[in-house]
């Protein structure tokens, strides 16, 4: 495997993980807001 391919593969994987984490954080903020405003689920 070429170095550039491996760099690209790792960057792509890290970008995917960051996207997932950011998505999860947005969902968490949504539920924190519900809890803070008294609309408990």
């Amino acid at each position: 495997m070429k170095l550039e391919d491996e760099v690209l593969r790792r960057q792509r994987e890290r970008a995917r993980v960051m996207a997932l984490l950011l998505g999860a954080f947005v969902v968490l903020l949504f539920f924190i807001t519900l809890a803070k405003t008294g609309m408990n689920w």
Partner: protein
Amino acid sequence: MPTLEMASPAALPADWRDFVALTKPRVMSLVVFTGLCGLLVAPVQLPAALGFTAILCIALGAGACGALNQWYEVEVDAKMRRTAKRPLPAGRMDRQSALHFGVGLSFFSVLLMGLATNWLAAILLAASILFYVLIYTVWLKPRTAQNIVIGGAAGAFPPLIGWVAATGQMSALPWLLFAIIFLWTPPHFWALSLFVRSDYAAAGIPMLPVVAGVRNTRLQIFLYTLPMVAAAVAPWPLGLSGAAYGICAAVLSLVFLVLAVRVATNQATEPTQMAAEKHLFAYSVFYLFALFAVLVADRWLAA
């Protein structure tokens, strides 16, 4: 065109799995569990989202400690077999990435804790991170054989933080939980350091077996077990838990004490002959999990 074989690993962006490894997930599991127990035994029930966030922040704070610890100790880790394969000494990640990751996680976890629960919990979380990194890792660990005794306070914070996240204030029970982990840390770590002492000696870390010898360490393990057992059983006579916890804590602690006596009477100096120390180390992890689980179960039975 350069190939992978020709490139140094640090020239590549670190794999995301190495960032996970940097957080010491196995250590984090015990931290998360004790923090969760502190939250669950509190008399105030947090909404699920806020309880989850509090535990997440404790986990991220512990991860930050792991990352900053590995960033600071890269040369030491490279000298020890047990730690030489970590991302930094193995060259799979550059130091600056680890530093940025650790500092970023620290700020994120403290801010999120403050915004989601309360600022006293956030201050305690910040204090535990600073204590672990500055007092334990930077100051005590390379200087004194008492590093684990004082540094154990850093690992004792999670149940206190969990309780404060739920209630907004401190009281006797979370401080007792703090004391249990604080007193549990020396026997736990010294049991490990007995059978990996050559690693610590090679790295120049003044762990007790390296500085004071094997025999003295075994005696210290036994001596520290006594107040630990007292602290573990104390919630029952103090009326902070029920009889179910008291009896289970007494039985679990008795087994711990028996194993500590076996260690204290062991004469072996070679790691291969240190079955008693290995048993105590393995049991100490189970002991803490079981003790805190029983406390939560006792609280739920009483409710």
